[in-house]
């Protein structure tokens, strides 16, 4: 190749290259923004791990331990004699621990039916935008509850065994933080009870009073009013309910409904609650709620949490 041709080629190459380079030099910040390849994950879709009675998608961060004290009074319409429910108390005391940022384990004790409960909660998909886009956060929950009351198996039923005291909960929590102030969650849920009571029908057959496997669809949300204050609602629709025909007033079953106000102060989340249930395990508040919110069987309650960081996260120092 002779020299002038080479030069011509180089010239052409340079002419082609130049506009690209000038373009790249335009605005440094604009260039950074254009090239930023991050994925933003939704933070704090809810303030706490509990919406009202049930769960939120939130799990505890790695190495943090939460002490949660849940308390429900009696029904407000119990009147003066019970000081509008304040004379009664139903509690759950529990510890939640974050094994990783997405996996929590919990153990708790409920005064209703003297129930011990425990669960694993795993956040396996996170709402994100940016390079990776996903519209919702999904957490799976698997729990078991053991009724220690009554003390003797024979007190329940003739063929009642210890394993019959157990019930299980499987739940998917699907939530979206629409704005920094508004989050919505749906909760397909299943509760399995090892034991249910039976009745004898007019042909003499033994039939269960309720299904061992019960299904629910929950819906709930939170609206943040200020940085430290939000209101929550939670409702669970029973999908295969027992039915109330033939049952007396105190034995009729209702769907669980609750409203709450979250107040966050530093390491505490304080939730003030109005609900129609007093039980605090899924078995109790989903399948055994005998109070009708709209008839005034409303329980005042609160959840108080305190978080301790047991193991500090490594930040590279």
């Amino acid at each position, binding site marked *: 190749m002779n020299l002038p041709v080479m030069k011509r080629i180089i010239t052409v190459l*340079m002419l082609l290259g130049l506009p690209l380079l000038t373009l790249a*030099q335009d605005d*440094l*910040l604009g260039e*950074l923004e254009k090239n930023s390849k991050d994925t933003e994950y939704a933070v704090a879709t809810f303030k706490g791990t509990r919406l009202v009675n049930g769960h939120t998608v939130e799990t505890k961060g790695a190495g943090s331990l939460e002490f949660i004290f849940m308390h429900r009074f009696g029904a407000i319409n119990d009147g003066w004699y019970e000081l509008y429910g304040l004379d009664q108390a139903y509690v759950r005391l529990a510890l939640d621990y974050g094994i990783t940022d997405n996996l929590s384990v919990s153990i708790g004790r409920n005064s209703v039916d003297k129930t011990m409960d425990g669960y694993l909660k795993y956040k396996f998909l996170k709402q994100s935008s940016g390079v990776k886009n996903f519209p919702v956060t999904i957490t799976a929950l698997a729990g078991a509850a053991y009724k220690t009351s009554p003390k003797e198996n024979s007190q329940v039923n003739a063929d009642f065994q210890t394993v019959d005291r157990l019930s299980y909960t499987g739940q998917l929590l699907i939530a979206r933080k629409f704005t920094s102030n508004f989050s919505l969650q749906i909760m397909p849920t299943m509760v399995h009870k090892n034991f249910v009571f039976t009745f004898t029908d007019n042909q003499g057959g033994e039939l269960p009073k309720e299904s061992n496997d019960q299904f629910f669809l929950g819906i709930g949300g939170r609206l943040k009013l200020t940085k*430290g204050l939000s209101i929550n609602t939670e409702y669970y629709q029973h999908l295969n309910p027992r039915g109330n025909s033939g049952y007396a007033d105190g034995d009729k079953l209702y769907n669980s409904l609750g409203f709450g106000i979250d107040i966050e102060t530093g*390491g505490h989340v304080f939730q003030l609650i109005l609900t129609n249930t007093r039980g605090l395990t899924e078995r109790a508040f989903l399948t055994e709620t005998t109070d009708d919110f709209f008839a005034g069987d409303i329980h005042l309650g609160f959840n108080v949490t305190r978080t301790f960081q047991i193991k500090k*996260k490594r930040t590279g120092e």
Partner: protein
Amino acid sequence: MLHNNRRSMQKILPLLFSLLMSPTLAQQYFAEKSIIVFFSDGVIEDIRAENKKSTSIFDLGKADVAFLVSIKDFQFPKTLMQVHFNEKYMESDKYPKSSFKGKLVGFNPAAKSVQQVHAVGKLTIHGVTKDVDIPGTIEFKDPGYQMKAKFMLKLDDYKITVPEILWQNIAKEVEVTIDFTYRPL
């Protein structure tokens, strides 16, 4: 005559372009390693958070520099602190990024030793943009540069409010340390 002209043009053009281009090629530097540390000297406890995912470009010829910082990438030792930092103080859903855009005043591209310079420009945090003058150093470290700075940030300047009853352990002023290593683009 015409022929001669073309010949000389052919000689000049490449020369012209290479003159224009050669500095451009070596001019831009991109941060390959970055650390931003935020430190709050509190009454009850000290808080330290770290961000290693910031990006930056440095233009040697113009001494222009730009930084882009994603707020959610600040890592705290306590999960709850990180959540509060994003939700309550920085409102990172609304203001996901902080940035700086400006010039290194006092920078001499020929010098190879540590130089005292000032980053003069616009700093945007929490949606508030302020004119700032931040002293720091720059040093040539083959094949690129290293920039360091340490300065105080007043939370009030950027309308970051700390609810005092809630966290007594966050100071009104926090110390920010940056350490960026650049390589040629």
